């Protein structure tokens, strides 16, 4: 298996603001690569560099062996791109937009008509194809954008936050299509997302990016295993909270339960310990023995948010808020400035 996408120490600065600070990554052919991070982490800037829209101020990027700065035209033929802001001409119909897009990729005649039919079928837009785009809902626009990125059967597909702002139904539909694309066409998919479950559901490999740097990379399972603990949630009545806390801490100090972080959740406690399924039984027995009335108890594997927490010391939601407040001081990204 060879690398479909490679980045080596990519850097991009907007004036004094370094949006990307040395990103290196390798995506194998046929892989779905999840690029996970909060708003403002540098995801879109990395995508703009890898899709030839923006020149890196340092480092290099390759798509299927072609340099994204030096061999832009070849790269553009090989990739399909659905950008975060689905910029679609509202005055055209879906069919006109797809036909124009296909022509620019050199598709003609029956191949073009065939491809338009195939991609609209794939994203479930066949019925709306002859309507003006201004009448489309947000979800339909995303699907049309996805369809237009697929017309020329790209070997590498870049999807920049394909489901941000979509309702759960539209999101599930896009997820299905992404899986189908890989299965049917063996396409390599580079997917940026700020949704943990999206990276978890879809990606073979995940890179977590924060403040312009990749802080963790691996399969979702391996990343979560790195956290080294399972998550046990126990619901406790407010009046019994203090007693429950004492009981759990005693179990830990007495060696019945392994050491691990204990956090109050307002409705009970969350305990981070290894071997969750075995220790949940220990916990239940211990609480029962102490005469504490408890509610629902559950054990779960750590999420990618726990991985993010371990890597950066903060939750993703908090990082996104921090990025939003930084944003006001930042030089805005020049929209539409592109490479020749």
């Amino acid at each position, binding site marked *: 298996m060879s690398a479909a996408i490679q980045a080596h120490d990519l850097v991009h600065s907007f004036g004094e603001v370094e949006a990307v600070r040395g990103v290196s990554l390798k995506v194998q052919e046929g892989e779905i690569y999840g690029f996970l991070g909060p708003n403002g982490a540098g995801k879109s800037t990395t995508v703009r560099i890898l899709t030839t829209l923006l020149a890196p101020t340092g480092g290099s990027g390759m798509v299927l062996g072609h340099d994204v700065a030096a061999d832009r035209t070849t790269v553009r033929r090989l990739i399909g791109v659905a950008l975060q802001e689905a910029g679609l001409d509202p005055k055209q119909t879906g069919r006109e937009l797809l036909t124009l897009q296909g022509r620019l*990729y*050199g598709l003609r005649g029956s*191949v073009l008509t065939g491809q338009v039919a195939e991609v609209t079928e794939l994203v479930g837009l066949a019925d709306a194809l002859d309507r003006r785009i201004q009448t489309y809902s947000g979800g339909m626009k995303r699907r049309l954008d996805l369809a237009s990125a697929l017309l020329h059967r790209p070997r590498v597909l870049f999807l920049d936050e394909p489901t941000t702002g979509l309702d759960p139904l539209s999101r599930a539909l896009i997820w299905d299509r992404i899986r189908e694309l890989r299965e049917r066409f063996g396409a390599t998919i580079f997917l940026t997302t700020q949704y943990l479950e999206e990276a978890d559901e879809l990606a073979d490999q995940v890179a977590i990016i924060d403040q312009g740097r990749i802080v963790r990379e691996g399969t979702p399972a391996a990343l979560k295993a790195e956290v080294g603990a399972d998550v046990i949630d126990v619901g406790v009545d407010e009046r019994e909270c203090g007693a429950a806390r004492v009981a759990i801490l005693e179990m830990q100090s007495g060696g019945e339960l392994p050491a691990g972080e204990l956090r109050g959740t307002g409705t009970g406690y969350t305990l981070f310990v290894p071997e969750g399924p075995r220790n949940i039984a220990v916990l239940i027995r211990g609480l029962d023995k102490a005469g504490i009335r408890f509610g629902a108890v559950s054990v779960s594997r750590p999420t990618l948010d726990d991985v993010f927490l371990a890597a950066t010391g903060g939750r993703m939601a908090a990082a996104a808020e921090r990025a939003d407040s930084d944003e006001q001081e930042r030089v805005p990204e020049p929209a539409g400035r592109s490479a020749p």
Partner: protein
Amino acid sequence: MTAASVADEARTLAAPAGWVADVAAITGRAVRGILREPELFLFALIIPVFFFVVQVGALGDLARRSMGISSYAAFQLPIAILFAAASTSGGNALVLDIANGYWDKLSVTPVHRSALVVGTLFGELFAVLSYSLVLLVFGWVIGVRFAGNEVVGALGLLGLTLLFGVGFAAVSIAVALATGSVRATQSTFIIFFPLLFLTPSALPRDQMTGWFDTVVSLNPITYVVEAARSFLSGIDVLVIARGALAALLFSTLTFGLTALAFRRRVRMG
């Protein structure tokens, strides 16, 4: 699905389209966009027609009596046509593409970058041609006739108007590319007022004196206006050649600005 068929299907269908095909595709889209906004079309025609009617109504008799202009309508029609030709919206369409991200969407395709601008300019040519034809028919209906052969006169006037109009459209396209700002692009309309009204728009140059005469003589559009009139009032090859040269120089200058702005826009980073 076997590994071999996956590999086959994995091959991309993209192929080089060629510059001409790229320009044709972008032009087609620009023309569709123009046809789908008939209100802009009407707006571009209403104001020149209004000015034309007011000028001819107010000054027609005076012009005949004191300036010896037999048909003030024929004297004013080229102004209305050039006015409409300067009301195109190519820069506006382009700057909206830049603002809403469609420019980026087109830019990640292998399209020749210059085709994005040239196709937009061809769309503007279509708009200028449409406006001019409507106004020529309007003039014909109210009795304005060409001096020599009608077909030669009409083609000559259209050719000159297209050359001027596309040059004018290039200004707003240059501003759109350079700034990416919707407001700045819309404001380029303002430069049209000195360019078109510091000319012999209301009375012939030989009736002018003082600073106004000097400014008018320095404005290249003055010669475009005089050449356009020459097709209606009496063909003067020298005046027409001088006007065509002025329109050509004006358009060359504005194309140069567009090319600079284009390079700035597509420069990496």
